[in-house]
C-alpha cells in the first residue's frame, strides 16, 4: 500500500514540476496575459451562451460543455474593457480552480510559454482597479506578460457587488 501512495505522490510532484512556471497566454486588445497552466483544463471555441438573469455583466451565462453546465465569464468585461462582439477567433479557456469549473472568454489564445520565477516581478503598486487581478509581471525577451491571479478573478467581486447594491 505504501509503495502505491508513494508512487502517486511522485507522479503528482512530477506533474507539478512539469507544469511549473508554465503559462497559457492570451490576448485582450494588444495586451498579453498569462494564466498558470495548472488551472487550465481545455480551450474551446466560442459557443452558444445561455444568459442567466440577475448576474453581473461579466458573467455572460452558462454553456453546455459535453453535458456539464459551466458558467462563462467575459474577461474583457471583468477588466472593465468595452464589450466586443464574439468572432471565430474568440476562445473560451476552461479553467478548474479548486473544483470550480468556469469558462473564460478571451479575444484569442496565444501560446504556452515558460517564465522562470526569476523573470517574474511583483506588479507596481498602482491603485488602479484592474490591477488587483495581476499577481506578477513576467518578462519574456522584450515583452511583458501580465500574470493573472485566477482565484481573485473568481472570488474578488465585492467591489462589483457593492456597486450593484447601491
Amino acid at each position: 500500500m505504501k509503495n502505491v501512495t508513494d508512487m502517486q505522490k511522485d507522479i503528482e510532484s512530477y506533474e507539478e514540476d512539469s507544469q511549473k512556471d508554465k503559462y497559457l497566454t492570451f490576448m485582450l486588445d494588444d495586451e498579453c496575459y498569462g494564466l498558470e497552466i495548472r488551472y487550465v483544463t481545455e480551450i474551446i471555441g466560442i459557443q452558444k451562451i445561455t444568459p442567466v438573469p440577475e448576474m453581473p455583466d461579466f458573467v455572460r451565462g452558462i454553456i453546455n460543455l459535453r453535458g456539464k453546465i459551466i458558467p462563462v465569464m467575459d474577461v474583457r468585461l471583468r477588466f472593465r474593457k468595452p464589450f466586443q462582439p464574439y468572432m471565430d477567433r474568440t476562445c473560451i479557456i476552461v479553467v478548474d480552480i479548486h473544483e470550480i469549473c468556469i469558462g473564460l472568454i478571451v479575444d484569442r489564445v496565444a501560446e504556452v510559454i515558460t517564465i522562470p520565477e526569476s523573470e517574474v516581478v511583483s506588479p507596481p503598486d498602482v491603485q488602479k482597479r484592474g490591477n488587483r487581478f495581476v499577481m506578477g509581471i513576467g518578462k519574456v525577451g522584450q515583452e511583458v506578460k501580465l500574470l493573472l491571479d485566477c482565484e481573485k478573478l473568481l472570488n474578488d467581486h465585492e467591489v462589483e457587488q457593492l456597486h450593484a447594491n447601491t
Partner: protein
Amino acid sequence: MSNLREDPILEAYLTETTQLVEQLEEIILVCEEARGFSEDMIHEIFRIMHTIKGSSAMMHFTNIATLAHALEDLFSFMRNHPQQEFEWSTLSDLMLEGVDFTKLELCKIKNGDAPDGDESDLIRRVKRILESLERGELNPIPQAPLSRHYKAHFFFTEDCGMENVRAYQIVHQLKEMVEEYRHHPDNILDELAADVIRTHGFQLWLKTDKLYDEVYSLLSNTSYLRQLELFLTDSMAEQQAEEGSAAENEVCHDNKQTAEKQHPSRDKEAVPNTSRHQGKTINVNVHKLDELMDLVGELVIAEAMVTQNTDLIGLELEQFQKASRHLQKITKEIQDKVMEIRMVPLVMSFQRMQRVVRDMSKELGKDVQIKMVGEHTEVDKNIIEHISDPIMHLVRNAIDHGIETVEDRVAAGKPETGVLTLEAQNIGGEVLIIVRDDGRGLDKARILQKAREHGLIHKPEADMTDRDIYNLIFLPGFSTKEAITEYSGRGVGMDVVVQNIAAVGGTVSVDSTPGQGATFTIKIPLTLAIIDGMNVRVGESKYTIPTTSIDSSFRPNERDIITDPHGNEMIMVRGNVYPIIRLHERYRVETNITRIVDGILIMVEQDGHRTCVFVDELLGQQQVVVKALPAYIRSFHSIEGISGCTLLGDGEISLILDVQGLLNMK
C-alpha cells in the same frame, strides 16, 4: 469518507450492521407494542445479535462484538426456555440502549474514528438480567440434565475465505452452551487450518444437554455455510477414534457419505437464510446512482442529437426512422428504470419516528400511539434525506406541545392514549406527508399575540383566516413555547422545517381544530432529478416550466387585458382577474414580442395562488433532467424564480422556472 471507499469490506460491514440494528430496533418496538416477546421475535433478535457479533468480531470492533455477544447469550437463554416469564419492558429498554450504543459506535467508525465506547456497564446489566432469569427458573425442563454427544461436520461455501475464523466463531458461540467440545483441525487460529477446513470441512464434537433440533438450528445459523451434518454419537470414545482417523484425512469422505445417508433431507435445509436473500438486493452508493442518472440524461440528449440531426432534414429514411424510434423507446425505458431505482419507500423514515415517539412519551409521561398510513409511498432517495429531520421536528413538536398529558386528556373527555398519525400519499407529481395529532391544537390567540410581539403581522388581523394565523408559526423568529424542553423548542422553530423542505422544492402548511389536534402537511415533489416540463421561448432564451404547476395556456384577447393605474397588467379569465408576469421584463431578455396579444399566456398555480406568465411561444412538452446551476452562479445570489437548468434535445440550455419563486417576486 475517503477511508470508506478504499475499504469495501468495511463499507459492507457498516451497511449490513446498520440495517441489522435498524431491523432490531423495529422488532423491539413491535414487541413492545405487543407487550411481550413472541418466540419468533426472540429467534429473530437472536439471529441478528449473532450476525452482528460475528461480523464485528471479524472487523475487530470488540466493544460492539462483546455487547452483541452478551445480548445473544441472553436471547439464547430465552429461546431455550420459552416458558420462562420475564419483564419485557426492562428488557426492551436495555435492548434499545444497546441499539443506541451500537449506532453510536457505527457512526464513529463511519467518520473514521475508533469505536471507543465503553460497553461494560451495559454488559453488566445484561448479565444481571440473565442471571436473574436463570435463578428464576423454577421448573427446569425435565430432559435438560440428559447430556448427549453430537458430531457436527461443517462445509463452508467455496469462496467465503477465512474459513478458520468462521470455524472459530462457531466454537466461540458454542462455548457457553456445551459441556465439553473438541474439534478438528485443532488449532483453528492458525492460517493453515483454513486450507484444511476448505478441503475437508470443519469437524466438531460436543457434549450438551440440548436437543438435536436446538443444536441443529443453532449451528445452521452460521454464515456462508454450504452444508452441515449433525448426528448423535454414543460416547466420547467414538469421538477419539474418529478424530484419530480424521487427522489422517482419510475417513472424511466416508464420513460424509454416511452422514448423507443418515440425514439426507437435513442437508438441503442447511442452506442458510442469508444466502437466499443475497441474490435479491444489493447496496449501491447513491453517488453512483447520481452519476448513472447524469449519464442517462446525456444519453437522452445524445439520442435527440442523432435522431433530430440537421443533416437529416429533407431525407426520406424509412429504415433510419424505424431504428431511431427503437432507440428512443429503449432510452426512455432506461430512464424510467434509473428513476425507479432511486425511489425508496418512506417506511424507514417513518419507522425511525416510532422510536422518537416511544422515548418521548416515556420521558414526558404521555401516552402516545403512532399510526402509519401509506408508509410504502416511494420518494426519490435525495428527497428522503432532506425530509427526515423536518418530519422528526414535527413529530417532536406534536408530542411535546400538541398531545396533552394523560390527566389533561381524561379531563377533556378524550381517550387516554393520544394518537399521532404519520401519513404519506401520492398525488400527481407530488407526495404529501401528513403529521397529525389529536392533541389540544394550536392556540390562535397565543399565536397572534406572539406574532404581534415580534412584529410578524403585515396585514390587518381582521382579514386573516384561521389558516393564515396558524401558518404564522412558520415565520422565522417565531416560537410559542417559552419553556425549553429536551425535545423541542430549542430556539430553532418551525422556520427551520420550512427551510429544509423548501430546499427540495417542497412546502409546509398547518391546519388545526382547537381541542382536536393539529395537522401539518408537507408537500414535496416526487423526484428532483427528472420533471415533466413545458419548454417556452422568450427571445433567444428558453425556459422550462414544471407541468405540475401549469393550469392552462392560451392566446389572450385584447379586451380581457386590464391595466391598473400603477401600470400593473392583469387579465380576466372566466370572470376572475389574474396578474400577468412578463418574463422578458422580469429577466431583461430582448424579444420582438412585447404585445400581450402576440404571445402566449401560461397560467401557473402554486398553493392556490395563480398568475399568468407571458412568453413568446410554447416549444413543447418534454421530460427534462434537472441540473443545479453551477456553484459559481449560485455564489452571487439565488435567482428568484429559477430553480435550476436543463439540457434540451438540441444541446441548448433551458432555465427551469420555479413557480413558487415567481409568485413571491413582487
